C-alpha cells in the first residue's frame, strides 16, 4: 500500500471539514476524488501532502507517517499540484518547470527531464509565464509537478487538485498520457476532479465525498451511478448516454 489514510479527521473551530476518512491507494493506482464544492477534497489532499496535520487518524506514505517525513524527504516523495499557485514574476516557462527539480539539486534549467516534459506537453518553453493564458499557466504548473515525481516510480506519490479545469481537450489528453506513464512506472496518484466523464475514463478507483465524509468508494463503474451521484452532489442526475465522446482513440 503506497498511501494509506485511516480514520482521518480535520476541523477548524467547530466546523468539521474532513470526517473520519479512510482510503488506500496502491502502487501505480489512480484514485479520483469527486464531490461538490466544499466537500473537503482539497483539505484531504493537503492533509495527505503533509502541510496540515490531522486532529485524529493517521496517514502513511510508503509505510511511514507523513508527519514524520523531513521536509526534504517529503519533497522527493510527494509531488503536489495545488490550486493556490500565485506567481507574479516574469519567469520563463522552462524555469518554472525546472523548479520541480529543486528537491533533486538546484533546479537546473538544462535537465533532460524538464526538456522532455516541455516537448511532451507542447509548452512554449521560453515564453514569459506572465504573458500566458490561464490554461497555459496551468499546463506549466502540471509539468513542474510531473518533473518532481519523474523517474521516482514506486518511491513517489502524486497529488493533483483539479489539474484539468483550465485545459483544452488536446492538453487534457497529453496530461492523461503522462499520468498513465507515471502510473505504469508505479507512481500512486490522487486526483481531485469535477468532470465526471473524465473521471470515468481515467480512474482506477473513485471516492465520492460529501460534507467531509466518504459517501462511497470503489470501481468507477460502480460509483458513477445516478443514485450515488445524486446522493453525493445533492442534485438529480440522469444517465443519458451522452456525452459519448471521450478523449483518446
Amino acid at each position, binding site marked *: 500500500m503506497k498511501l494509506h489514510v485511516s480514520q482521518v479527521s480535520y476541523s477548524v473551530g467547530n466546523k468539521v471539514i474532513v470526517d473520519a476518512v479512510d482510503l488506500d491507494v496502491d502502487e501505480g493506482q489512480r484514485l479520483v476524488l469527486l464531490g461538490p464544492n466544499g466537500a473537503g477534497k482539497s483539505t484531504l489532499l493537503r492533509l495527505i501532502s503533509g502541510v496540515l496535520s490531522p486532529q485524529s487518524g493517521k496517514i502513511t506514505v510508503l509505510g511511514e507517517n507523513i508527519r514524520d517525513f523531513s521536509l526534504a524527504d517529503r*519533497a522527493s516523495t510527494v509531488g503536489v499540484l495545488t490550486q493556490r499557485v500565485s506567481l507574479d514574476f516574469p*519567469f520563463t516557462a522552462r*524555469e518554472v518547470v525546472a523548479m520541480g527539480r529543486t528537491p533533486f539539486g538546484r533546479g537546473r534549467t538544462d535537465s533532460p527531464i524538464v526538456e522532455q516534459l516541455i516537448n511532451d506537453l507542447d509548452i512554449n518553453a521560453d515564453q514569459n509565464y506572465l504573458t500566458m493564458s490561464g490554461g497555459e499557466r496551468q499546463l506549466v504548473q502540471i509539468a513542474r509537478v510531473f518533473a518532481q515525481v519523474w523517474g521516482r516510480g514506486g518511491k513517489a506519490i502524486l497529488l493533483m487538485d483539479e489539474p484539468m479545469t483550465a485545459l483544452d481537450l488536446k492538453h487534457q489528453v497529453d496530461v492523461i498520457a503522462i499520468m498513465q506513464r507515471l502510473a505504469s512506472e508505479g507512481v500512486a496518484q490522487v486526483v481531485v476532479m469535477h468532470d465526471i466523464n473524465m473521471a470515468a475514463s481515467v480512474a482506477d478507483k473513485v471516492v465520492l465525498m460529501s460534507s467531509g465524509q466518504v459517501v462511497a468508494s470503489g470501481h468507477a463503474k460502480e460509483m458513477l451511478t445516478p443514485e450515488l451521484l445524486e446522493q453525493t452532489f445533492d442534485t438529480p442526475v440522469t444517465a443519458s448516454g451522452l456525452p459519448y465522446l471521450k478523449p483518446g482513440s
Partner: protein
Amino acid sequence: MAFYSGGYMKSLTLVLALILMMLLALLTGSVSLGFSEIGKLLDGSLEPGLATILLDIRLPRVLLAVIVGAGIASAGAAIQGLFRNPLADPALIGVSAGAALFAALYVVFGSSAPVGMALSAFAGGVLTTWIVLMIGGRGTSISTMLLAGIAINAIALSGVGLLSYWSTDAQLRTISFWALGSLNGADWSSVFIALVIPFSTVAIMFQSQSLNVVTLGDEEAEHLGVSHQKLRQRVIVLAALSVGVGVALTGIVAFLGLVVPHLVRIMMGSNHKVVLPASALLGGLVLLLADTFSRTLLAPAELPVGIITALVGGPFFVLLLLREQRERVLV
C-alpha cells in the same frame, strides 16, 4: 529565443560599466583629473596633494557608494522575491524607519558624532526588523508580516516626527540631512565597516533557488522542500544587515532597493541566480552615478544623494510601470 537572452553578455556589460563609472567618478570633482594622473599614481610620480584627493577622499567615497548601492539593491531583490511582490521594498521590513528613529534619538539625546549616529541607526534598524519578524515571522501568512512592517514603519516614523518637533534647529538639520542620504562622510573607516555588506550579499545569493521556489507560494515551496519560515528569517536578517549597515553609513537612499531589481528583471528575467548578482552590480553603479551628480551638480555645495535617486528614480519607475502595463494589455 528567450524573451530575455544573453544574460552573460548583459552581466559582463554591467561589470564593465561599473568599472568605467568608478574610474570616471575618481576623476570627476572640484579638482578635475585625467587618466594620465591615474597612470602617475600607479608609478608613484603623482604629486602628494592629488594623491591624497584620489586615495583618501574620492576612492573611499566611490567604494562606499558601490558597496552600499550593491547591498541595498540586492537586499531589495531578495525582499521582493520573499514577499512575492515585485513592488516590495527593504523599507517594508522596518529597517530604514527603525534606523531613522534611532539616528534621530541619538541626535536629540546624544550628540551629532557620525560614528555614534551610525551605530545607533544600525541598532535601530536591526531592532525594528526583529520586532516585525516576531509579530509576522511565525505565522503562515506573508501578509501578516507585510502589515506588521507597515505598522512598525508608521510608528517609527511618527517617532522621528515627534523628535523633529522637539529638536533644536541644528539637530533638526542633522536629522533631515541624514534622512535624505549622503555619502559626504565617507572615509576609509566607513568603507571598512561597510565590508560586512558584501558578506551578507553573498549569503543572500546562496538562497537563490529557494527564493525562486517561494515565488510560487509558501505551501508550494514547502512541497518542493523549502521551508518558507526558515527562508523568511534568513533573508530578512541578511537584508536587514545589508540595508542596516548601508543606511547607518549613508542615511536613507530612496528608491534604490525598489527600482534597481525591477529594472534588472525587465532586462534579465526573474531567476534569482541572475537577479541577485545583477541587482548588486546595477545598484552599485546607480548609487555611484547619483553620488557623482550629487557632488558635482551644485559644486562646491552638495545635494543629498537621496534627493537625486528619488527625483530621477520616481519618474523613471512610473515610466517602467506604464510600459509594463501596456505590454500586459498587448499580450
